[in-house]
């Protein structure tokens, strides 16, 4: 393609990307460097149905004057990034200086909001992604072997977990694992422990979220692998069979290498998706035991009443950086493969 043609071809996408993705990210970044102007407090008497109290209120006029002078708020540099709610350099330094063992140090660090969320987010990502790949492939191979008349319905049912809205799916499962629900009550019966509750233990909550994550993402990898299996060259398979390769060997040395680009594709998408895990935490009301980076952003924007845009912006930027770091090995590998091939 000529450069000029390529330019005109890509222009609409490029414009949309700049307007709706690149510029907002820049704006979020700028926002994350600022904190709000000072709130001028004055003490006044508040009266209501329950009597009078002396309380502070915001002096609107004085605060408005400050706001008009600096519409963006006070410049804070990277202060929001390094405070306790985010990278917490000060707290980590202190923990390093005051703790004696690695265990105590990690205990302290994992008590900090950002690192606690990062710990769950990474665990979730690195457990869910490989399981989704493996089970998805297994399901695809299984469905591919089915007689023709069963294929349609089986594919439909295998896709169900993805069709159900994550929030609804997690709610249904939540009610089932509740101590009063069918799974929760059965477990109590089997274990003979009336106070056993899946929702009251950090470990069980993590396992529940991870199992849900795998369950809801399998259809995606299944359908991609299934499509890929249709393109496995019959000649190569026959040749392998004639050479006496077993089923397993054919799978290992013919099918999987053929599907490798799809593995890379699914890994990329899954790493990105899982790193931003959010809905299951809200759906399972699991924020007591598991918080993710996206949950922190949600909490900053929603729960504090007047939203903390700077904090939310900083966590968003850190999430983007996190995704970039996660994807870089895969991207570097793909790029190397590409350049190696093109030199032939």
């Amino acid at each position, binding site marked *: 393609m000529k450069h000029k043609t390529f330019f005109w071809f890509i222009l609409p996408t490029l414009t949309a990307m700049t307007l709706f993705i690149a510029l907002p990210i820049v704006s979020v970044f700028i926002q994350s460097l600022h*904190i*709000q*102007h*000072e*709130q001028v*407090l*004055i*003490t*006044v*008497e*508040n*009266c*209501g*149905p*329950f*009597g*009078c*109290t*002396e*309380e*502070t*209120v*915001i002096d*609107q006029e004085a*605060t*408005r004057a400050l706001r008009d002078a600096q519409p963006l*708020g*006070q410049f*804070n540099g990277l202060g*929001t990034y390094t*405070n*306790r*709610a985010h990278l917490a350099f000060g*707290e980590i330094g202190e923990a390093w200086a005051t703790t004696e063992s690695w265990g105590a140090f990690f205990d302290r660090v994992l*008590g900090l*909001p950002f690192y606690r969320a990062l710990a769950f987010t990474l665990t979730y990502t690195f457990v869910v992604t490989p399981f989704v790949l493996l089970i998805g492939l297994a399901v695809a191979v299984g469905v591919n072997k089915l007689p023709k008349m069963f294929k349609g319905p089986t594919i439909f049912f295998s896709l169900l977990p993805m069709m159900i809205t994550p929030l609804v799916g997690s709610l249904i499962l939540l009610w089932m694992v*509740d*101590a*009063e629900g069918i799974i929760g009550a059965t477990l109590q019966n089997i274990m003979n422990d*009336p*106070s*056993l*509750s899946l*929702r*009251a233990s*950090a470990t069980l909550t993590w396992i529940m979220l991870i199992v849900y994550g795998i369950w809801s993402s399998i259809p995606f990898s299944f359908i991609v692998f299934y499509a890929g299996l249709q393109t496995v060259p019959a000649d190569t398979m026959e040749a392998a069979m004639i050479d006496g390769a077993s089923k397993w060997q054919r799978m290992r040395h013919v099918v999987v290498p053929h599907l490798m680009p799809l593995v890379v594709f699914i890994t990329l998408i899954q790493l990105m998706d899982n790193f931003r895990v959010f809905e299951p935490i809200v759906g399972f*009301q*699991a*924020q*007591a*035991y598991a918080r993710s980076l996206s949950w922190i952003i949600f*909490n900053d924007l*929603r*729960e*504090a*009443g*007047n939203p*903390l845009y*700077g*904090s939310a912006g900083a966590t968003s930027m850190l999430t983007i950086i996190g995704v970039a770091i996660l994807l870089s090995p895969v991207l570097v590998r793909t790029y190397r493969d590409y350049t190696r091939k093109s030199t032939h």
Partner: protein
Amino acid sequence: MTFTKLAATSAIAGLMATAAFADAHGAACGPEGQSIRILGNDFPAIQAVAGAAEENCGGAAAEFTRNHTTEMRDIMNAALTPDPAEYGGVIVANATLVQLMNDGLLRPLNDLVEAYGDNISPSQLITIGGDVMAVAFMANSQHLFVRTDILEEAGVEGIPATYEEVLEAAEAIRAAGIMEHPLVMNVQVGWNLAEMFNTLYLGHGGSFFEPGTAEPAINNEAGVATLEMLAQLAEYAHPDHLSQASNETQAIWEAGQAALGFMWGSRGSAILDDEGSTEEVVSNTVLAAAPTVGGMDIPSATLWWDGFTIAANIPDEEAEATFAALASALNPDMVAANNDAAVWLVDGYTPGPAAAGVAATAQGGAWPYPMVPQIGLLHNALGAELSDFMQGNESAEEALADAEAAYRDAAREAGFLQ
């Protein structure tokens, strides 16, 4: 926070009032042909007030719309910021009023009360620094729910009046083998857990901030005692308590699986009605004052009110019509038709059994939920940081220090601390 003990007198005047001004509701709707747009939470009492306003004054207005949503807290600041604002009237509570006032989005109502306030008694007016900012019409608070039959069966006499007695009663019920987890409370991690902390902390006589400033002051003896009590209560609570809020606790209560509950007064009528539960549970449920704690003498609860406010960014005539319509709703007829939907602060209210808990809690002199502008940030910090303590991973002092540190970061970002 200095509290002139007007509380008992004025609250009870409102709660117990009989139809004194019953004739003052000849629906004065103010300027005609205005657009009246109301935003409010979504529960029966709020619908009753907004509905009565529409019935009275919808005809005189060019347009009358109501948006009832439980998500109102999240949309109201954005909706009231533009000029003209999306809504003229907003039905708020203590905490949500502060959220709107922080951004300067409300107008003082002094003149409007003068002109259209015939139905409104002085104790309903929320005045801040001399300006009327809202008109309250109903009260709410947390308080104790008990199952008298189960207490009796366990050999507990009377209704527990202190948290220490609550613990004894819970132990007696467990020891008698009636229930393993006789207690329910709203301690879902987040807003609810922090609110439970607030009630016990105020009950211990604590205050949240250094007077006149936004410096937090919760890491003290009262704070530690509060968390220790919370941990003892959790021993007797349902194992899933950290994910339970009002809907879950009400369901457990109605299923007859709890004997002692700390729940919202506004759940009282839902529990005492003839839906969702058995005769056994309903007839033996008694609503009592929130218990006191640690030898102090005020109930451990936060008093709340719901009331209406008028947006700053709308034309004066529209504000007048909106205020007049909402004020017209606060009449004895509306209250009579919805008597059990709330603990009304409006004339004509006859307190029923569902109101007994809130009335007794207010009478006992419980504190109102603090209306300082930075309280939302502290509340949020507590909600997120106390969960480690509740799981036994942290000491009370560490949890309180963490909450203060998290609050400081947020308050610095919001401009309350420098």
